[in-house]
């Protein structure tokens, strides 16, 4: 916990379960998923008013398997904060943060669509980029990049 921005000092004290860190110059908070909504409310009130990004990462062999990454910006303090939330592969759920940052709506749908992480309490958790009838969650690491078989003329003869 070196050189934590002053704006976050009080939040870091209030949340014992949250680990603050500095990674390659970025302020990072690792939060258990039970705490994430309260943590985001607290940091929003300390000045991280802008929601920037939410995405998921599939680490496959790690435990927990998934990580949801929330990027926030404080326009008033000129700071960035990245909140990492570990999500186990056996129970890929997480409370929605749309109540704190309404802008997370599309991003959570995207993470659900591509990774199959269910955001509990989300107002409309449907596929956003892929067709509704799509099966599976393609950005998971156990889904191969795949290909669509194309029927060329005279394909069998050429082979």
């Amino acid at each position, binding site marked *: 916990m070196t050189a934590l921005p002053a704006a976050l000092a009080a939040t870091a004290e209030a949340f014992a379960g949250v680990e603050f860190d500095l990674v390659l110059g970025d302020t990072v908070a690792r939060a258990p998923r039970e705490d994430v909504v309260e943590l985001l409310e607290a940091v*929003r009130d300390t000045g991280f008013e*802008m929601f920037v*990004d939410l995405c998921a990462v599939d680490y496959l062999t790690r435990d927990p398997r998934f990580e949801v990454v929330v990027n926030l910006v404080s326009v008033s303090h000129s700071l960035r904060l*990245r909140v990492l939330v570990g999500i186990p592969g056996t129970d890929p759920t997480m409370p929605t943060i749309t109540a704190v940052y*309404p802008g997370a709506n599309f991003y959570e749908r995207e993470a659900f669509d591509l990774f199959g992480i269910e955001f509990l309490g989300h107002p409309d958790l449907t*596929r956003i980029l*892929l067709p509704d009838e799509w099966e599976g969650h*393609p950005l998971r690491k156990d889904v191969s990049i795949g290909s669509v078989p194309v029927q060329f003329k005279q394909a069998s003869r050429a082979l």
Partner: protein
Amino acid sequence: MSDPPDVATGDSEAQKAPRAESGSADRRTVHDLWLSGTEAPRELGLFTDEGAQEMLVEESDEILAGQLGTIIEDDYERPAGSVDDELQIINMGPQHPATHGVLRLHIELDGETIRRVKPIIGYLHTGMEKTAEALTFMQGSTNVTRMDYLSPFHNELCFSLAVEKLLEVEVPPRAQAIRVLMSELNRIASHLLWSATTGFDVGALSMMIYGWREREPLLEFFEKTTGLRMNHNYIRPGGVAADLPAGWREDVAGIIGTVESGLADFEKLLLGNPIFIGRTKDVGVLTRDECLAYGVTGPLARASGIDYDIRKVFPYSGFEQYDFEVPTTSNGDVYDRFLVRFEEMRQSMRIAQQVMETIPDGDYRTEDRKVTPPPRARIDESMEALIHHFKIFTEGFKVPPGETYQAVESSRGELGMYLVSDGGPKPWRLHVRGPSFANVQSLPMMLTDSLIADTVAALASADPVMGDVDR
């Protein structure tokens, strides 16, 4: 617009009553018709039905009120006994010419007033984030440059900066200056195209010709420098692909002259024109709070008074050396977005001018042989050069494990990339935070309770590039 008569009860006066009443109070509610000249702050709407529309659920009212300083109230209730066909649902897109790509808007209309909008995206999804995991870090910039196809240099720059951050590679000052020059020229090109299409969309048909005409010398310069008019793959991890061509100063000076005279024409043509003012003033308004809550960045946020430009707040690629202003306005309507973008073009030209004056000599890419392939001549002489060349082009260079978020100010707002490396030659995960994705998400805020005729102007002013939204 008049309410359709109530078929079931015939009691149309009773239906109108609650709406009229709420309009007479001095703070407006979300379903009051939005009139120009109103001073009351625009409130966040509560969208009542299913779907992504329900961005603000009832449980969160208090939280949101605390965040935004507003109280959310929904006065729009379908009167008892009314029939279903009072509201008309139309689909705008995905083949509509004014949606700037394959965006589909699901619009619910009450007469001519938009009650709800739901943007439906994904028609251009090609799985580029998955593709990125199959390409090496060296090939990665060819992939990302195709995402936001109107600002390819910004995509490449963002990706390269993220890779360099993980590699901890120092980029030579000349390469940084070239990157700044190209990305600022790209911003001008993108804004010119935006002025052309948006002008066209609000009825200034000649803008379509003038905007593209002024953009042409920029594309010619890009072609001269990179070999391609778009999807350049010019900015790469470690530097840029080639040095600036001979005579580039004359070219850039010529471009600046062309764009400056073009901009003066645009302003004369548009900003005082009563039809243009009528189509754009107080249309598609986003407030400062809405922008913050929905992650709206770039010219949209600056037109709403948010002084947030990544080049100033989190400078990259040496932007702190250049002297430029971040224009902001306070109304947050389509007209202000024109003002902000016109001024941004001027500031970009200022930066380009400064690059011409201050660009240092030296390498245009890092000499670190692990990242940059050796010159062709060295391969004949040196075994190491041959090995490096072979390794780079077969396996690719390896990037130390780690994760990083890098953002640049693209023409449309904050373009961010979250890059995770597992120590191999390919990214473990590349997430792209496209500015258009968040800006498209804010369309319901802009459009709800405005007239259907304003849809095209408001949508065009958001400047969504669907390649960036769907990836």
